């Protein structure tokens, strides 16, 4: 008995040692032998192959990473203030965060989507939705600045957003939480039949990306979770997953999981657009903010819009259908051909794939299974293309590699599963660490995916990094998907929650990236285009300082005649016309952030001095060899003092010859 035990022990040890040498276990073998390190290594001075725009989730921002390195390049402030970049703090950017609820310093950013032309990424803009106070933002991919934010009225929990149609005709915003329409004081228990779910179609100006709400489709009071546009043959349609077709309003984890099937809503937006263009729809009062940042005035303006066009599904027969889809589907993903619509039933045992052509046929043949609030429900079997059987637990989101394969994330079984379109067979599965939400293949939801890498965005991190107290970094994982089997190459930390992402080849964006703002094109109301033009102007208790900055001084840098109780506006123009030479500005006691000012740009801070004295200001961005010398003083006298306004540089007037 003892001998047998010993033999077993030997065998065990042998197996262990052999196992660690074996081919199958690349984690234990390390990056060197699998050459994963080589494949994600971008040598100093070299560039990444792809840009990845990863939503910051509850940080409210959008982060820009390189793939395959996973290096973070920039955090673009979108829905949350960012003192580092003076976003939401400078007078010019405050209007960007205005809403019908007033100024909101934080948002919950979710699903970035890059603009498309003919169903392919064109890299003009990236759109992203705010979930909490419903908004859609547009980020310009030449400046990487948020240039427009539009609030979505009659919506709440703006989640099935912000996906674009294949020529960026529209960006959609679907409500996750249905709400009373119009909003009113009513008992919550009267939800059923009285709450509505608005699906908003925002027209995008092809020239400048300007957004305007074309119409709102008032759907039944379900939860609209995710969406994707038709493409190719299905261009003109949009698909939205729904859950809570039970119309529960409490303990949804139980009450919204009762129905065997929820729906994917198929919306023929072209048909509705035609109806609207012919004068259809009802103009209804509304109140929502439309905020636009102008690159030439370097200033945002906020306008309150007072009307929105409402469409009821019954107004446009043949425009809205429901396709039954098992168990609270989350992801709603359309393959590159536009034929397959994948519904990921969060609680379903299989992955449901609908066929667009079968859907059209079923509509044609009126294969209906009743209706929901007048909207025809198509027979489940009539639209079904197939199902991936026993794929994993908790499917969430699917993207495509353009080679006939689909990749789906599974939250509960914590894995990415590769399967084949058409045969629905599972080809590969890889564990993910841990509990993956969304995934991203650059262009993976377009007609032309770049099927080289896959990024899995995880909800749980646990033991993947050095711990930093109860809160640990969020995490993404990079896979190489060029082979038959997926290979995990890299873990990389992300800001906020990496909720969703969009990727694009660097070759499309790199040449367009702006280097400087042209000073001669600066149309800011308070621009100062030369040192000689700098001045300080008192207007009652408001003092406007027209200041310039260049390596390595401010003009003026000595200011007197300010009084306690004044409201001092520092309007500062960076005179540099040289790439990567921003200057910063901060003054002691300012109740706001620094200013970070790009070459050729003007920004404004308000300073309300409360104490008599001589107070310094300085450049906050290490700009030059004499950065530490880039400073000035402002003298604050008591209220009513007779010290006159004066401003100098090196003891002389700024325009002294």
């Amino acid at each position: 008995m003892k001998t047998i035990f010993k033999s077993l022990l030997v065998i065990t040890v042998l197996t262990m040692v052999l196992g660690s040498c074996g081919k199958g276990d690349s984690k234990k073998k390390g990056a060197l032998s699998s050459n994963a390190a080589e494949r994600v290594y971008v040598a100093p001075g070299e560039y990444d192959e792809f840009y990845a725009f990863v939503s910051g989730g509850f940080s409210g921002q959008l982060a820009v990473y390189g793939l395959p390195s996973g290096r973070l390049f920039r955090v673009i402030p979108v829905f949350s203030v960012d003192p580092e970049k003076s976003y939401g703090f400078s007078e010019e950017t405050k209007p960007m965060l205005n809403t019908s609820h007033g100024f909101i310093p934080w948002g919950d950013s979710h699903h970035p989507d890059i603009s498309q032309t003919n169903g392919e990424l064109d890299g003009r803009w990236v759109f992203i939705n705010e979930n909490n106070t419903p908004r859609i933002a547009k980020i310009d991919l030449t400046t990487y600045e948020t240039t427009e934010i539009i609030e979505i009225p009659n919506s709440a929990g703006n989640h099935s957003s912000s996906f674009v149609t294949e020529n960026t005709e529209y960006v959609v915003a679907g409500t996750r939480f249905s709400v009373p329409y119009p909003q009113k004081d009513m008992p919550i228990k009267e939800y059923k039949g009285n709450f509505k779910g608005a699906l908003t179609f925002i027209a995008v100006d092809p020239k400048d990306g300007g957004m305007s709400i074309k119409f709102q489709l008032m759907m039944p009071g379900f939860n609209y979770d995710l969406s994707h546009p038709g493409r190719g043959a299905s261009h003109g349609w949009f698909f939205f997953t729904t859950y809570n077709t039970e119309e529960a309003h409490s303990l949804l984890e139980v009450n919204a999981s009762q129905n065997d099937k929820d729906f994917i809503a198929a919306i023929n937006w072209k048909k509705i657009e035609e109806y609207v263009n012919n004068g259809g729809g009802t103009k209804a009062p509304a109140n929502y903010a439309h905020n636009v940042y102008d690159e030439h005035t370097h200033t945002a303006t906020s306008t309150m819009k007072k009307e929105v066009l409402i469409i009821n599904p019954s107004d446009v027969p043949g425009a809205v259908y429901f396709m039954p889809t098992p168990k609270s589907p989350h992801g709603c993903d359309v393959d590159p051909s536009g034929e397959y619509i994948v519904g990921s039933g969060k609680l379903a045992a299989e992955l449901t794939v609908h066929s667009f052509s079968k859907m059209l046929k079923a509509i044609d043949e009126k294969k209906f299974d009743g209706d929901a609030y007048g909207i025809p429900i198509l027979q489940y079997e009539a639209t079904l293309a197939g199902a991936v059987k026993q794929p994993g637990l908790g499917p969430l989101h699917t993207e495509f590699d353009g080679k006939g394969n689909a990749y789906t994330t599974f939250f509960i079984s914590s894995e990415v599963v590769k399967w084949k379109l058409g045969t629905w067979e599972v080809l590969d599965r890889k564990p993910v660490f841990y509990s993956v939400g969304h995934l991203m293949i650059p262009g993976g939801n377009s007609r032309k995916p770049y099927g080289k890498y896959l990024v899995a965005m995880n909800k749980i991190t646990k033991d993947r990094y050095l711990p930093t107290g109860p809160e640990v970094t969020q995490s993404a994982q990079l896979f190489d998907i060029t082979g038959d089997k997926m290979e995990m190459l890299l873990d990389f930390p992300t800001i906020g929650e990496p909720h969703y992402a969009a990727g694009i080849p660097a070759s499309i964006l790199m040449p367009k990236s702006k280097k400087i703002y042209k000073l001669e094109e600066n149309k800011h109301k308070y621009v100062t285009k030369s040192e000689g033009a700098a001045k300080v102007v008192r207007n009652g208790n408001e003092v406007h300082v027209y200041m310039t900055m260049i390596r390595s001084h401010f003009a003026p840098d000595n200011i007197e005649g300010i009084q306690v109780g004044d409201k001092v506006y520092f309007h500062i123009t960076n005179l540099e016309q040289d790439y990567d030479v921003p200057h910063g500005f901060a003054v002691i006691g300012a109740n706001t952030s620094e200013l970070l000012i790009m070459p050729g740009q003007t920004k404004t801070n308000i300073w309300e001095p409360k104490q008599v004295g001589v107070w310094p200001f300085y450049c906050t961005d290490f700009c030059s060899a004499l950065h530490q010398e880039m400073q000035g003083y402002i003298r604050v006298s008591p209220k009513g003092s007779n010290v006159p306004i004066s401003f100098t540089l090196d003891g002389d007037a700024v325009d002294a010859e």
Partner: protein
Amino acid sequence: MKKINLTISFLALFALFMVSCNSGEKKPDAAEAQTETAPEVKGQSAFKDDVSSANALQVAKSLDDFKTLVAAIEAAGVEDAVVNVGPLTVFAPVNGAFDKLPAGTVDDLLKPENKSKLAFILTNHVAPANYPIKQLKKEAEKGRKLYMASGKYLLVEDKEDGIYVGGTKILKTVQVSNGWIHVIDNVLVPAE
């Protein structure tokens, strides 16, 4: 005793496999890998940027008057310093200025072994500061000397026919993205 034996044999077995494991893996030769992948070292002077205003080196390169100066900058290997964010004020001698030096001086300085000597002379033409003409006038007026990158100080004089620096007259001034170029027709050889 038996136990110890067993342990030893386990350890031996383990070691054996570890060794075979290691030898089975190809460890890249560090030196070899380095020479293979070492990228060509490029500084910011190699960066292509046709949007920003031209910097001091770009301006100098675009003008025939500064052929000798540019050749000297390149020979001294200080291109990156001249495109640096600065701010820089460059007193740029025209070609003729170099001709005024004793015969053979320039050829001698351009030799690789004189690289540091050449660099020292060139840095005597650069002030790490922002000095437009207006400011130089004030420097003269207030009796402030210019501190040059060589560590030496230059005298500024406001004379009837113009501004003089280090005893030579400024002929012309060009604003560049990282500062100023003041054209002179003498080389400012630093005192040893």
